[in-house]
């Protein structure tokens, strides 16, 4: 690198020689290439393009040249500076890219540290299965009917053809509110909502009613004094058992998969006649486990069917009690236990899990079953 031209000695005007300029340019380019960071490049820029750089100093000497030589020297210096600046620009871009890449590498974290462990809310599966079932029927045009949990005995029993001395009243172990003659009970089934629907709604009636019910059973792995049912009621002209069977099959398929069917077995409920128990075809083995120890099924205990609920054609006496003409209208009703449904559908082995409110249990279900 040449020394500064302090004395403006014409002898030193050799700094404007092509050789000298070329050398300065070469030096600059080498220095630029040698800069390995933007900071180094900043120093290189200062040294080779700054006010005191050889090319700047050479430029200053142009003024001392004879006018004829000025233009050529100016052009020479200008080209040299252009070349250096272009190199600087290219290197700057290169180093910026490098800097950015290094930054990303430096900022790398262990993404596996993130885990879904922060407090996470959930709805109770009994709530969400009620909604899922309701939605099946809402899609068919049914409406969601509700009634009080503390209910008049008349709605819970009398209007459902369960007379005060009917053996069925002892079948269901009833919680009486106040005293046994108060006329108030904790509803033993969701069926009083049928009565309320028939008294309140206009015909035809298509309703689904999920809800909490009560019987005086002690809590154990399979019983609870407080449990949930869902019930459906249809009252219309020309409703038959075939409609009941078709609706049950549709319900079974909506909840358990294509092709799953139900089966009816004769039974007795005072508020329906004919009455039947509803069995659900096992949705796990679809019957393949029957008499086949090789393929035993835990869900249906290799019976191929799962007891699911009760059903029947609405007893004409019930229609009459609600002021509906049984010669003009017929209807069906069916009901299922929701705890039981959750148990076999989701493999819940202990009723208490649905009662105790342990967050570890409920969180597993999230916002829907």
């Amino acid at each position, binding site marked *: 690198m040449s020394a500064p031209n302090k004395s403006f000695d014409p002898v030193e005007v050799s700094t404007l020689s092509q050789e000298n300029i070329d050398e300065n340019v070469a030096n600059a380019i080498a220095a630029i290439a040698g800069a390995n960071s933007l900071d180094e490049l900043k120093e290189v820029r200062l040294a080779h393009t700054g006010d005191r750089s050889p090319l700047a100093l050479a430029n200053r000497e142009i003024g001392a040249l004879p006018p004829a030589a000025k233009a050529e020297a100016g052009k020479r210096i200008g080209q040299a500076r252009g070349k250096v600046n272009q190199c600087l620009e290219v290197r700057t871009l290169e180093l910026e890219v490098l800097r950015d890449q290094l930054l990303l590498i430096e900022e790398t974290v262990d993404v596996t540290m993130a885990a879904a462990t922060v407090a996470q809310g959930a*709805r109770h599966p009994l709530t969400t299965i009620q909604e899922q079932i309701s939605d099946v029927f809402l899609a068919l045009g049914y409406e969601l009917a509700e009634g009080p*949990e503390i209910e008049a005995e008349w709605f819970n029993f009398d209007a459902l053809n369960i007379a005060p001395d009917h053996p069925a009243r002892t079948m269901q172990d009833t919680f009486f509110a106040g005293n046994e003659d*108060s006329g108030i009970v904790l509803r033993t089934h969701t069926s009083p909502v049928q009565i309320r629907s028939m008294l309140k709604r206009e015909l035809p009636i298509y309703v689904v009613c999920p809800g909490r019910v009560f019987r005086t059973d002690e809590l154990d792995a399979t019983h609870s004094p407080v449990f949930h049912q869902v019930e459906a009621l249809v009252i219309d002209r020309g409703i038959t*058992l075939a409609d009941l069977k078709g609706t049950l099959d549709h319900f079974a398929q909506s909840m358990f998969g294509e092709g799953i069917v139900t*089966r009816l077995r004769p*039974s007795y409920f005072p508020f329906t006649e004919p009455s039947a128990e509803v069995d659900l075809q096992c949705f796990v083995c679809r019957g393949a486990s029957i008499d086949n120890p090789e393929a035993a099924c835990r869900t249906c205990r290799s019976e191929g069917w799962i007891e699911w609920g009760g059903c029947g054609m609405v007893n004409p006496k019930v229609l009459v009690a609600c002021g509906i003409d049984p010669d003009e209208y017929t209807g069906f009703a069916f009901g299922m236990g929701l705890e039981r449904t959750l148990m076999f559908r989701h493999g819940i082995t202990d009723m208490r899990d649905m009662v105790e409110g342990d967050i570890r249990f409920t969180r597993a279900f999230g916002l829907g079953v």
Partner: protein
Amino acid sequence: MKAPVSWLRDFVVIPADATGRDVAELLLKVGFEVEGVDSVGDVQGPLVVGRVISIEELPDLKKPIRWCQVEVGAAHGNADTPGIRGIVCGARNFAEGDLVVVALPGTTLPGDFTIATRKTYGQISDGMICSAREIGLGDEHDGIIILPADSATPGDDAFPILGLGDQVLDIAVTPDRGYALSIRGLARELSIALGVEMTDPGQVLAELPAAAGEALACASDDTQACDLFVLQTLTGFDPKAPTPDFIKSRLAAVGVRSISLAVDVTNYVMFELGQPLHAFDADKISGTVRARRAVAGEKLETLDHVTRELVPDDLVIADDSGALSLAGTMGGLASEITDATTRIAIESAHFDPVVVARMSRRHKLSSESSRRFERGVDRMLAPIAAARVAELLISFGGAEFAGSAGVETAPAKSVIEFDPALPSRIAGHTYSQDLVKEILIAVGCTVTESAGAWAVTPPSWRPDLIVPIDLVEEIVRIDGFDNVPTRLPVAPKGRGLTQKQRLQRRAGLHLAGRGLVEVRNYPFVGVSELDALELAQDDVRRNALRLANSLSDEQPLMRTTLLPGLLTAVTRNISRGSTDVALYEIASVSLLRVGQSANGGTNPPRPEVNGRPNDSLLSELEALLPDQPLHFAAVLTGATSPAGWWGSAANYSWRDAITAVLNLGLELGVVIDVEAGVLAPWHPGRCASLSVNGVVIGHAGELSPRVLENLGLPKRAVALEIHLDVVLANAQSVASAPTVNTFPVAKEDIALIVADAVAAKDVLATIKDAAGELLEDVRLFDVYQGAQIGEGNKSLAFAMRFRASDRTLSSQEVAEAREGAIAAAQKLHGATLRG
């Protein structure tokens, strides 16, 4: 109802190779669920009939032992003594010539005990003479089984004779089918399923000898409650006569203990025919035996040694001295058959189902007899069953027939007018008239066809067949539900969920989405739980409806607040190792109406069910019930976001309880106002009273330290409870869209020093009001208390955002609005701007 297959075979021909499972399948076909099939006895191997030929008492032993030669048939003897085996036996109740049961070597008895030839008491014992208990036929071990003379031949297989290996079905009988609580009734169902005729023991009247004595007289004073009463008198009965083995083993199979011949026979006939019967010691009866209502104050000690106070609604069987038994329910102790009874009176009557059901419920007394009467007994059976009992007691108890008495009130003949097309109309499946008739006849009906409706007379054993739909059920049941096709009915257009139902779902999703976990607690609560909440004695939440028959004495009340259940669930979670617990529940509570008693009233309205009750009756029914509003409550404790490598924990605080409600309001479009409130169980300085349109809807904040200590909960746990119904009712039905303003925002922060007592909410309201419509939003973002601003003061820092809808605001406009807010705060709250 338990039914041995062998007993069913007495009345219906079941294929010889049919197993218990096969019979169960047949019954299932016609609607009877068989809950189990058991085998009688657990004996395998050569168990044969033997005849004792000779008995030799073995000398010089501590206890008497016999060495017997027993004839066991040519096929079973051993090489040395063809047809004969020597057996050592400790029992003494038999004599030479008796027929006994011999377990030959190789027989396995219950308890996996295999008989082998062995040397004992100096003799080779080549088998075992069996007692009933040894082969699993009851508890008797007093002696070995002696078969009736000439009832079998030595060498016969003893299995069928003893009923061993017989299959016993356990059948679930629904309460409408009283007739099926008998072998007779089940045999009929089986005959229908098999399509064969049955031999009906209920239509065979036993021929008794001519009456040879004095019969007790009988009467019915209440012909509605007892329309048929037969009383047989037997004399010369041998009270020591043993019960024949076939009766004993059959009773054992249906689960009844053998007591004495007289009692066993009445039970046997009841199980066979379905007619409950009662045997009295006739010598303890004076005068006419009558069915009558009890007299107030009358007492009776029943067979279970309970002295019962009778009421005039009870029906008793009585003599001149007073009540002898609770009719159709349980006998009295004083007239019980004893081991000295020689004169017997057999009661065989027909009682009203409702009368018996009431009595059974009132006295909490359910017997085999009351179960049958409640469900309906064949009215024609009484004389047949009585004669059958007499026949058995004559032949096995040496009794003589003294005579019979009876009274009867003929019932109204029940004929059902039946449209034979009705089954098809109800089922949606075509049943031919021939099939309908065939099934009706199979179940016992008499059918008179005519052009229009048929006249169908149900059989006497089917009092449950009253109206046409009852007959429809029989058609569908016997033909089978499987034959009914399937069809999906088309519902009219539905309106979907109601607004309230939709909002309730949305509330649940919102809360769970914000990290709360739903619980569904029992609605039962106890006074101690309310005490733990430090509720004042006159707190309305103590006015709870009381259960008459709660499961636990600890929790006899229906909840008026959701908090006790939530707090219990939180405690349970913590005890199981969870530390950060945020639980919520949405459920109804019950609040007594004004004037309503916790113990309920009496004489509630009971509308008739022969038509729609009128509206005033319906509202009387509604008025019985307590208010049952929907509540939302939550309890939060621990970290809302736990500490970790990402940073420190944020713990639930009083603020979270309040914002949980406010945020729910925001979600549902309901403005909820917050004010300081005081209510147990909350911390009096950290409790917000929440209201909508000036109506208090609930409270939120930190639980009081005392309550937390009572419950053993972590410090600073917070809770909230609100009337969700009110919030849902005030929710926006249709959300309205805001105008999104695109002009630039101007931000200004101000810190105002006010006295501690000034509520932040009020300062905020003032700022909002004074800053004018350019103020887009203002939020309290910092609170400072300390020496710098003087004791008793606090500094509230507010972040303000200004924006106009039509222009970019000038800095002067913003400054004016800001100054206006400060000035108003100074004026109204004595605030000073913090420098």
